[in-house]
């Protein structure tokens, strides 16, 4: 019933994992309820403190998809620019890649023992 999955060196049981999460979760929830009672949602208390600057409107602060990982792509520009350029999108390159890879594999498989 426990769904023990033998993975070569050890086992994995999702059911036990879920039970653990529930137990520890309820413990954490219990501790959280012991916290400060005077906290009320949607009041002045839960405004983020941005060192006193006025909070931007929700629409203004929503980061759209193309900016989310700009740091990651900026750092890896050396890797990304040639990679994106390789995806040219024209059919000659698609069939070209296919022929090149077939030749490479034929050499590897054909020439070896």
């Amino acid at each position, binding site marked *: 019933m426990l769904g023990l999955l033998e993975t070569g060196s050890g086992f*994995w049981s999702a059911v036990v994992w879920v039970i653990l999460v529930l137990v520890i979760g309820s413990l954490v929830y219990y501790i959280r309820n012991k916290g400060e009672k005077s906290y009320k949602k949607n009041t002045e208390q839960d405004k983020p403190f941005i060192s006193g600057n006025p909070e931007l409107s929700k*629409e203004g602060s929503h980061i759209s998809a193309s900016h989310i990982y700009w740091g*990651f792509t900026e750092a890896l520009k050396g890797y990304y620019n040639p990679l994106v350029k390789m995806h040219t999108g024209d059919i000659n390159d698609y069939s070209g890649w296919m022929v090149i890879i077939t030749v*490479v*594999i034929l050499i590897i*498989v054909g020439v070896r023992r």
Partner: protein
Amino acid sequence: MNLLNHTPILILALPLLAAFLIPIIGKINKKATGIFATLVLGLSLILTIILAVKILSVGPQIYVFGAKSPLLTLPSSLKFPIRIMFQVDAMGIFMGLITALVSFLGAIYSLAFIDKKDGLDSYYSLLLLLTVSMFGMEFTGDLFNFFVFLEIASMASVSLICYRGTDLGEPVEAGFKYMVVSSIAALMVLFAIGIFYGEYDVLNIAAIASVIKYSQLDKIALGILVSVLAMKAGAVPMHMWTPDAYSEAPAPITMILVAASQASLYAIFRVVFSLYNITLNTLAVGWIIIIFGLLSMFIGVTMAIIQKDIKRLMAYHAISQTGYMLLGVGVGLAVLANPTALQRYGITAMEGGIFHIMNHAMYKGLLFLTAGALFFRTGTRDLNKMGGLAHYMKYTTIFFIIGAAAIAGLPPFNGFASKLLIYESVYKFNPLLSIIAMVVSILTLASFVKVFHSAFLGPKLPQFIEVKEVPRSMVFAMAVLSFIIIFFGLFPDLIVKNLVHPAVMSLIEQFKYTSTVLGGM
């Protein structure tokens, strides 16, 4: 004349008959075609389950076309099979289950998703043809029959990719690219089949496997088959058709296309394990498949992070997840020659790789359906334009979270179970591969957090005020997939012990494959 020993062909023949009847039904009443197609696919799903139970209990099933009895493989006067036959073993029916489930849910989903007035009957007959050809690729025991089904599959999927092409240009461009590349692939497969026929004068996979000597010609045929089928499965250097084709096809069709490229992946395993097995240089070919897997994993996910179109991002993830399957089974192949390593981690690696095929078909299908639901309601696929959809589309958000957690390999879901099998066994083979696999899994989670944030979170946008939840048939299809993902995640050992392990064994033991046809010669 009980129907039980005719099930292998009935799974195919009923949807085929339905595909040909649909244009006639379409003339009588437009809406009936969709429901008729869904019913037939449901019936073929039930038949697949019956066949699966029979195979896992009794053993591989043979079905010879046009012979006196379905099991008569060797005509009286000859020593090798002539007729076209279906040879369905545990691996074949494992893939058959994926195909049957994915196409049934795709048909249900497209009942509400596709509302085009004119081309409706051609849509459903092409969908049935695509399903039939995928079944054919997975069940057939004859090489040329595999080529014919491969060709039907690429033609049916190309026409379905171009389905929205009457008023848009991009789907036709995507379909054209996929068609050019698939016809080269199919012709090269035919060339390899010609080589086999020239050498051994027989077209049956089991018959060739029993007499194969890995001569110079066989090496050429192997090289062509592996590289061409890797292209059809979406391995990296030749993967560029995948994002175009998956992003332009309608969402249920993309889900079925994912299962279609997995049928080509199955074809690589069939060629390498059942046709050649020990005769080929297992380490070299194993490492070729591992390198395909590594490239697919890494380049797939790094390209996915920078995408702006939601379906293009998910298409690149399909490539990177195919890399996991190639890695798992490549390690299994690399150690096929020495039995100790095979017992220690080779079989677990293959179990992880093949279990990952099933899991990937489930959660990638779910993700594409959620992307289709977003497109159905908002009309755009661009992540920059979407925002705050969680407020309106409650169920789709839950399904998306389940799918994203499963693809990233978070514990209670099925992605984690198969990735864990791959990590632990590949680590024993070569630690670096396992580390790369883990890094790729983290990047997968990163890109799906990006999709979740930009599409679902954020404030209510003015232009999506009237957006509401998707119709019930789409929600039902997504709910079934989520249930399967959660069930496989909680009880992975049931699936691995009963379905995946027999499939791996049927791939590894080539003598069992040949003896079922040639009668233990």
